[in-house]
């Protein structure tokens, strides 16, 4: 479907409504809004949400921001909960217990804590079983809801409350897990990595593809956190842009095993551009810590080169 943001926003009112209590400058609400806009207006959705920032800020009894059906159970099992609802739909549809002409889509949302870490087993199981659902990870790179603890999505050297930049250990000492590749290793029909950049085009198109591809699909969406990353709230979109333009967060999709990098920066920016505006990387810019930036750059380059190769060989 051709993308025209003005038309989409005009024709499709937000299914994630205002009044939620997410922080100003948080990357997750625009992501949720845009992903739900990719639903056909006539389709109903069941949304499963892992415990996390998004859940505790959007559904505080008796108020909800979700206009579709919504279920939250626990931290680590949004995928299994969603899978159960999908199984119910399949069974009841088959038995004629639901209207024939109505369609329900199944979408799960989890942060990187609920997805990369505590919920990885539940996610892997649901994807392998082939449920017709889309799992969306809004990746803000740490356990932000409990107060910025490191996760396996936290980039190397980041200062978090459980990997503080100390005098002996300068932040998190391990590299970030590549969940998008782990999900691709499940050989799903559609896996994509995206961010709210360039008028949401990349995010919208991938969301639509993911939701309307039959079978289990996965979206990994960069969702910066002003508190955890330490940037001014109004700079959210700038941070998204720098993550993509430095190739820290490449935008790509894998459709039935075929890789496609959906945006290649004409001129890849040095990683400092992404690191500099964030307080969590402040210590990297202290004299004597140049090696950390060098190492960070090397890791970004290596992963970007790998991705370019994957795109080439999978054609």
């Amino acid at each position, binding site marked *: 479907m051709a993308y025209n943001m003005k038309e989409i926003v005009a024709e499709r009112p937000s299914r994630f409504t205002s009044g939620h209590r997410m922080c100003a400058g948080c990357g997750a609400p625009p992501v949720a809004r845009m992903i739900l806009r990719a639903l056909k207006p006539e389709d109903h959705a069941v949304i499963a949400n892992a415990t996390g920032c998004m859940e505790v800020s959007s559904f505080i009894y008796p108020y909800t921001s979700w206009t579709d059906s919504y279920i939250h159970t626990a931290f680590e099992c949004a995928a299994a909960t969603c899978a159960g609802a999908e199984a119910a*739909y399949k069974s009841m549809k088959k038995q004629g217990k639901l209207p024939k002409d109505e369609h329900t889509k199944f979408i799960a949302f989890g942060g990187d804590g609920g997805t990369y870490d505590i919920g990885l087993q539940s996610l892997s199981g649901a994807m392998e079983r082939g449920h017709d659902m889309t799992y969306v990870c809004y990746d803000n790179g740490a356990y932000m809801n409990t107060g910025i603890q490191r996760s396996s999505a936290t980039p190397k050297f980041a200062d978090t409350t459980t990997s503080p930049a100390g005098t002996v250990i300068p932040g998190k000492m391990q590299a970030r897990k590549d969940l998008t590749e782990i999900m691709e290793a499940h050989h799903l029909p559609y896996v994509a990595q995206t961010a709210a950049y360039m008028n949401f085009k990349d995010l919208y198109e991938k969301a639509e593809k993911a939701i309307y591809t039959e079978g289990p699909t996965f979206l990994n969406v960069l969702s910066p956190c002003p508190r955890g990353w330490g940037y001014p709230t109004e700079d959210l979109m700038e941070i998204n842009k720098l993550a993509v333009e430095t190739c820290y967060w490449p935008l790509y999709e894998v459709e039935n095993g075929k890789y496609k990098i959906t945006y290649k920066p004409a001129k890849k920016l040095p990683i400092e551009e992404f690191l500099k505006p964030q307080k969590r990387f402040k210590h990297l810019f202290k004299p004597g810590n140049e090696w950390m930036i060098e190492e960070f750059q090397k890791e970004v380059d290596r992963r970007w080169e790998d991705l370019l190769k994957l795109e080439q060989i999978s054609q």
Partner: protein
Amino acid sequence: MGIRERLSGNEAAATAMKQINPDVVAAFPITPSTEIPQYFSTFVDNGMVDTEFVAVESEHSAMSACIGAEAAGARAMTATSANGLSLMWEMIYIASGMRLPIVMSLVNRAVSGPLNIHNDHSDAMGVRDSGWIMMFSETNQEAYDNLLMAHRIAENEKVLLPLMVCQDGFITSHAIENIELLEDEKVKEFVGEYHPKHYLLNKKEPIAMGPMDLQAFLFEHKYQQAEAMREAKQVILDVAKDFEKLTGRKYGLIEEYKLEDAEIAIVCMNSTAGTTKEVVDSLREKGIKAGLLKIRVFRPFPAEEIAKALSNAKAVAVLDKADSLNGVGGALFQDVAAGMYVNKNNVNLVSYIYGIGGRDTTEKEIESVFNDLIEDSKKDKIENPYRYMGLRKE
């Protein structure tokens, strides 16, 4: 009337599930309940049921998927044992907190550690305060009958609580017994269709479930659960009455066996009740007034009924197939003691821990407990109420 069969307890549970024909079954194998999802997936793959079978990767996901399915508007069932239930523990509370009438077959087994695959009740006792209705089954027939009644109870508007039907691992789950089954059509009619008021798949009325529920509301929501549990007592009896009309098999919250004039009595659950009945019979032949109180419904706990039923006894032993490791006695013992005290029944009461990790429970041992009770009934004060039955001396 009825179909005469020979089935193991697991086969009986799987057969009940087949006849109930739930919309979704999500389960993960664990000894000794493994056979239930095994038999059931055969029914699914041979087109004998309409169920979607979700072969999950863990028990945590089994209960999560059951919650998702039940919330979506489906009837969801599962089966598990011991550590499987332990892994589910978080979701067990969420299922009842969300008021979802999921039905589980719990084949009781010792919870690790150390690892042991055999029967005791430590798994069930670990979830005794989780807001699930808990029914125990002496025989394969009861495991079957309790499952057939389960949905009618759990889905009742006044109740809306999940329900687990317990039976003893291996002792009944793997032992083949005579059983009387109902015809498929009769089960279908008895269980009825499930029409939840609110559910996720109702496009006309989208619903949000599982909120952040803070200081202003959680207390009241928990109170509502407590109220539902109290209401469940009468619903269980009403459903049992209908079941009796259909089958001739009568069930209460408790079963009183030769209890009316009993001077000494044993309280226990599941298969041990069968062994105890044999001992009661042989003691009665010798002129000893022994009796049995079998607990069929453990949650809601029939405290008043128990206190009343034991009002003529002079000494009572409560047999717990799980040790609470609290320095006082088993969980069932404490519930019985509290119920007796509140209802002004001052009978001498003792706790016996027995059968841990599948330790065999013999008639001889049950008889020795009755012999102890004869002595206890003569005393004003019991000095050693926390005891063990069948513990090796060396």
